[in-house]
């Protein structure tokens, strides 16, 4: 099971460069998720690893071996496609065994392998059906099965769940997580859905505009986003961003924005003094705002409730703080009314500060 390394990987279509020097190392048996909005280059990166797209510049190493000029089949990998990419004219068993049959493996072995994988994926009753005779979820499973029957060392997933409906997606996501525990192989997974990324990944790589924004464990990225993009991309509902100026009175720093004034804690004070900034962007996750009517005004924010989205146990409030939209997550049984002004306390530990000139986190 190999280590995969991307070194200064670039991709251009004509004169337009879409990937700008991707450097990435993936450890043995690691589940790496490339995540980012549409057009960020994540699928292109995956397809270059697969060998379906040519490499414009840079190199891909699998176990130290440069592979960027090799055919896909020489790279020892299996791939699950977004639209499943099943062979329409072959039945499920034939679809899953195609690679093995090309390798001219013994019939017995092929049959055993297909049976084994079909048992894992619950496809045993459908082995003789054609893809057109299967439901979306079953097709998805066949696509997984086709990858699993091969003993490839690396699995590539290109948005494998995005064609499924919401319920099935959640179910397949859980199944993938379970499969992940059983199959100890390198997996590289591309998605635009940050929940898939957070739940499945050992390591998340957030991409935007053809550049890696940040990589690390889901927890690292959630707690310590390096820049505004990562902070805003991960987490639902997304982080609130409020502009504030830095003011000082009696040796104490305050963040003063439209409709709020927050007292900085020591750590933030030290950082802000070092950076010598006049303005910052304050990032607060909706879950870090706590409904507390009696909180002191220098560690709280007042919000007029505009909309309340009832989800179940939780509700998401969309509120207004002196003209700025602020989202808050709170227990649904909290007694609130639309139009009311509510006070939410903020633990300054949970506040993220960003430099407004370059969007980088201040820490």
């Amino acid at each position, binding site marked *: 099971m190999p280590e995969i390394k991307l070194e200064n990987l670039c991709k251009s279509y004509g004169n337009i460069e879409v990937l700008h020097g991707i450097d990435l190392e993936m450890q043995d048996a690691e589940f790496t998720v490339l995540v980012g909005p549409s057009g960020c280059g994540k699928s292109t990166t995956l397809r270059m690893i*697969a*060998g*379906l797209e040519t490499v414009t510049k840079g190199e891909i190493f699998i176990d130290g071996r440069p592979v960027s000029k090799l*055919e*896909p*089949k020489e790279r020892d*990998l*299996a*791939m699950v*496609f*977004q*639209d*499943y*990419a*099943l*062979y*329409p*004219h072959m039945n499920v068993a034939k679809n899953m065994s*195609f*690679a093995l049959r*090309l*390798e001219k493996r013994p019939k017995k072995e092929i049959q055993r392998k297909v049976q084994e994988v079909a048992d894992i994926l619950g496809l045993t009753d*459908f082995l003789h*059906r*054609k893809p*057109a*005779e*299967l*439901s979306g979820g*079953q097709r998805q499973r066949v696509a997984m099965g*086709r990858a699993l029957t*091969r003993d490839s060392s690396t699995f590539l997933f290109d948005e494998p769940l995005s064609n499924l409906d919401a319920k099935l997606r959640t179910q397949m996501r859980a199944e993938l997580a379970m499969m992940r525990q059983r199959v100890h192989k390198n997996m590289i997974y591309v998605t635009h859905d940050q929940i898939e990324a957070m739940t499945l990944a050992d390591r998340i790589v957030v991409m935007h505009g053809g550049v890696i924004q940040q990589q690390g464990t889901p927890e690292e990225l959630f707690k310590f986003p390096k820049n505004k993009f990562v902070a805003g991309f991960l987490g639902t509902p997304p982080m609130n961003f409020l502009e504030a100026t830095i003011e000082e009175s009696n040796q104490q720093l305050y963040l003063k924005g439209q409709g709020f004034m927050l007292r900085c804690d020591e750590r933030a004070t030290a950082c802000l003094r070092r950076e010598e900034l006049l303005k910052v962007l304050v990032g607060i996750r909706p879950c870090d705002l706590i409904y507390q009517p009696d909180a002191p005004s220098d560690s709280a924010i007042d919000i007029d409730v505009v909309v309340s989205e009832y989800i179940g146990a939780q509700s998401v409030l969309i509120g207004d703080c002196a003209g700025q939209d602020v989202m808050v997550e709170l227990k649904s049984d909290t007694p609130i009314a639309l139009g009311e002004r509510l006070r939410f306390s903020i633990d300054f530990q949970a506040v993220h500060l960003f430099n407004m000139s370059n969007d980088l986190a201040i820490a």
Partner: protein
Amino acid sequence: MSTAKLNRLSPYLFLAPAFLVMVLALLYPLGYMIYGSFRDWNPSQALGESTFVGLKNYYTLWHDPNFRESVVVTLKFAISVVTIEMFIGVGLALLLDRNLRGMSLLRTLFILPMMIAPVVVGLIWKYMYHPTLGVFNDTLRALGMEPVEWLSQHALLSIIIADIWQWTPFIFILALAALQSLPRSALEAARIDGATGWQQIIHIKLPLMMPVLIVTCLLRLIDAFKVLEVILVMTAGGPGLTTEIMALRISRTATEFRELGVAAAMSNYLLMMLLLLTVLMLTYNRWIEYRANKAQRAAEEAL
């Protein structure tokens, strides 16, 4: 008449003009031909003046060695041109299904032969095959080889070559269209699964193109059975009967031999052969549709 009744009739009212045209332009001549095929009919007679002879025309033709010869020539011609055209057309499509510079120009050039009027095609090839002036023999002589009597010694081969030149593009276009509508991701999956170029063609591309290829093949067969102009211009059926395909024999029977009844019966034989092919084609389409429906039902049950 009540409105409801009128409403029920309205589709038929709208269809009536088209139906009328069809009766006049298609069914009437067809009926006329079938009626004529049962009569001993001379061009100087009106159809009504001719005598009824029953199945005699059909019977005579069945035992006429010349007619049989022309059936054999037609079958030889149609089967060989369509087979070779299928191979070359599909092969070219597989070769040219890629994005190279100037490919669209090349594709346009490839389909030019199909756009030339058949009579012109016949004339061009006739001159190219000319024993002393033709470009083929010029080339052979320039290479120090013996010239070939194209249209006399190898007449059938010569017209087969000309037809291939003219009609391969038809198959090429349809095969290329079929290729380009194949699911890209399935081909990518095959590459990942380790299929070489040939294996992709044999295991993925050709099977997926098959429905289009079968229909194309049948269309070409139907067409090849009726070919006339090019051969008429090039050999006029000669030498002897070696290139006298059915369409040509029909035309000669009607004009030279002045036996309209026999010509009509001959046409009916041809029509029956073509009908058989058409029925085959329709059955195939039905079968595909039936299978698709079955697949859809199964998918719905699977949910």
